[in-house]
């Protein structure tokens, strides 16, 4: 079933996430803040002021709404996944189809918003980091759309895992800079993007791709992604006449989850379930479950839950999904967990792979490996709920980018494959 209400164009900006959070310094309870080199402090203050002005300017949201409707393809549909629901054997499962947004993931929501803001601020170049490549593609896309230069930092390991998105970014005119140090994944790409930004802050805007980073990024990214929750709420009310029992989303940095959670966070009867990458197991270095197994720390500009060793060195991570392979998490999630408003679980690589296959065969949808984590948890949850319960899952992106990677796993990892330069 497809449900498609009228476009968002002309609507007002997002509601604040929750009463009293974040505070003016960007703290969600004990999480958030600004931990950056001094060079970035005044530019972050400028960005905060610019965003506050934009936030209160109906013209900003009008333009963003037009772009969302006519360029990005919003609203995305809400789809009742009957065959998947039957397989789960319990609740009705609905999928919020962010995979059908332009560029194939929710990342376009944030990239459009930040690019509009960057243009208001007179910036001519966009910097981005990317793990799975979806945020890089979204940023390269909006840079092309607005005639801006674009540099995307990506771990060399991720460039191999997500070769298709590297090609897409280059076709869109972006420069993709490989990062070879450390684990050569999202963490290092973020380090490198921050380094570039420190040196180019006068004319570059750093489009952070998730609800992480120094204030105002977590709240700003959450605001731009909250369109997912606003739409889902209206759509499920129209389809079922009531709110869902559970809302499920995968969490790496956490932007798609914050986006859909924001639509329901004030509804106490709606359970919020975040799904982290359980990787190969609970041992350090084998997963990317910062909410489940991390401890308070500071990385990439904010204080949040962080995977780290006893002395504070950031721990290596692993996930089959490049987009979840990150040792930190957005402060809003850490807060939702601390106050008990959201619950967080882990799904291991193998279960995510199974869920990928399940959705492909039962519904004809190839999910992003990130989203497959959410599907796995949602199927298990739905199976334990009665038939009249409703589980809403954010299908944050499509799986085209993961096809080769998944195929290699299914073939037992055989077959050498290298990315062309």
């Amino acid at each position: 079933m497809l449900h498609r209400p009228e476009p968002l164009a002309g609507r007002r900006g997002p509601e604040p996430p929750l009463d009293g959070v974040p505070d003016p310094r960007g703290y969600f309870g004990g999480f958030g803040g600004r931990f950056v080199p001094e060079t970035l402090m005044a530019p972050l203050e400028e960005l905060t002021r610019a965003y506050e002005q934009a936030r209160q300017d109906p013209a900003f949201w009008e333009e963003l709404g037009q772009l969302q409707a006519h360029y990005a393809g919003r609203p995305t549909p809400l789809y009742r996944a009957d065959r998947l629901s039957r397989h789960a054997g319990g609740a009705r499962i609905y999928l919020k189809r962010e995979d059908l947004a332009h560029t194939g993931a929710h990342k376009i929501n944030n990239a459009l918003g930040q690019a509009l803001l960057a243009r208001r601020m007179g910036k001519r170049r966009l910097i981005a980091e990317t793990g799975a490549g979806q945020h890089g593609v979204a940023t390269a896309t909006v840079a092309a759309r607005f005639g801006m230069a674009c540099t995307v930092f990506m771990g060399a390991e991720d460039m191999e895992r997500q070769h298709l998105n590297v090609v897409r970014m280059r076709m869109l005119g972006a420069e993709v800079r490989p990062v070879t140090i450390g684990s050569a994944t999202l963490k290092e790409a973020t380090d490198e993007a921050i380094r570039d930004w420190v040196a180019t802050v006068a004319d570059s805007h750093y489009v952070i791709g998730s609800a992480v980073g120094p204030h105002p990024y977590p709240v700003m990214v959450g605001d731009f992604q909250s369109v997912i929750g606003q739409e889902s709420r209206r759509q499920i009310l129209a389809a079922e006449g009531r709110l869902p029992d559970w809302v499920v989303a995968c969490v790496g940095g956490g932007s798609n989850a914050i986006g859909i959670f924001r639509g329901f966070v004030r509804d106490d009867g709606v359970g919020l379930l975040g799904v982290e990458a359980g990787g190969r197991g609970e041992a350090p270095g084998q997963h990317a479950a910062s909410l489940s197994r991390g401890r308070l720390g500071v990385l990439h500009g904010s204080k949040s839950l962080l995977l780290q060793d006893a002395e504070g060195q950031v721990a290596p991570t692993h996930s089959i999904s490049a987009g979840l392979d990150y040792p930190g998490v957005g402060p809003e999630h850490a807060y939702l967990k601390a106050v008990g408003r959201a619950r967080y679980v882990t799904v291991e690589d193998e279960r995510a792979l199974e869920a990928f296959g399940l959705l492909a065969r039962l519904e004809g949808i190839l999910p992003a490996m990130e989203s497959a984590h959410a599907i796995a948890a949602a199927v298990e949850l739905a199976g334990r709920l009665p038939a009249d319960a409703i589980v809403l899952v954010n299908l944050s992106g499509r799986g085209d980018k993961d096809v080769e990677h998944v195929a290699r796993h299914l073939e037992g990892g055989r077959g050498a494959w290298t990315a062309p330069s």
Partner: protein
Amino acid sequence: MDGPFVTWAHTEGGRRLAAAFDRAREQGRAALVGYWMGGYPDAEASEAALLALARGGCDVLEVGLPFSDPVADGPVLQQAGAVALQAGAGFRRVLDVATVVQAAVPETPVVVMGYYNLFLQMELGTVAAELARRGLAGVIVPDLPVEEAGEMRAALAAHELAWVSLAAPTSGERLALLAEAGDGFIYAISHAGVTGVRQGVAPGARELVEGLRRHTGLPVALGFGVSGPQQAAAYRFADGVVVGSAFVLRWMEAPTRRDALREVEGLARALHEALVGR
């Protein structure tokens, strides 16, 4: 504001740092602050390198704490930090290095420079007590802006340790705040960017130093990008210069450890001489 710097310092550690700048000024030169990555390439060699910096004429020593995600550092210090971590340079191990060095050159104040997460993982009061017990002068935390530093500054002050603030060419109206919060000396970042060797003189550097002097009588040392004696001489308008990556790069390029130590000491000496004539 031509009196002694030391009168502007808030703590014992701050006074030791400011006094080092006063001594340099009495000798008619800007002070030389030498940075070395603690534990690079291993603990013992990093002690030797720091002592070579002191022999070469550094007035203040900075010992870097290696961190997995050094977002304010350029490729040279990033690489040095990675090597140090590989060699097992944990927080305490590097503090041990700093302690040995401080005991060997008691007249040269030693500060530790490290990213905030490393300090946060111990209770801040415990860290401060430990640094004080080890005879160190203070800390520099490149990713802890003054707005977030309240708790750390209080912990340090309780143990008479200096919190050295950083100021950047982009700081603008924040300079007053940074100058007021700082202790010992103000670390002025010459270029918007990460640490590393650069050529030429940063265009906004003089303005930054003058801006800070309007708000404080603490010494102002320019760092980030100072590559050699010529550039150091061009920065004599500041009260001191900070050199780090250039030393580490000399070490990396030297064929043997003995050569490396000689190179590092030689560069320190050349920089020291270049700073005369302030």
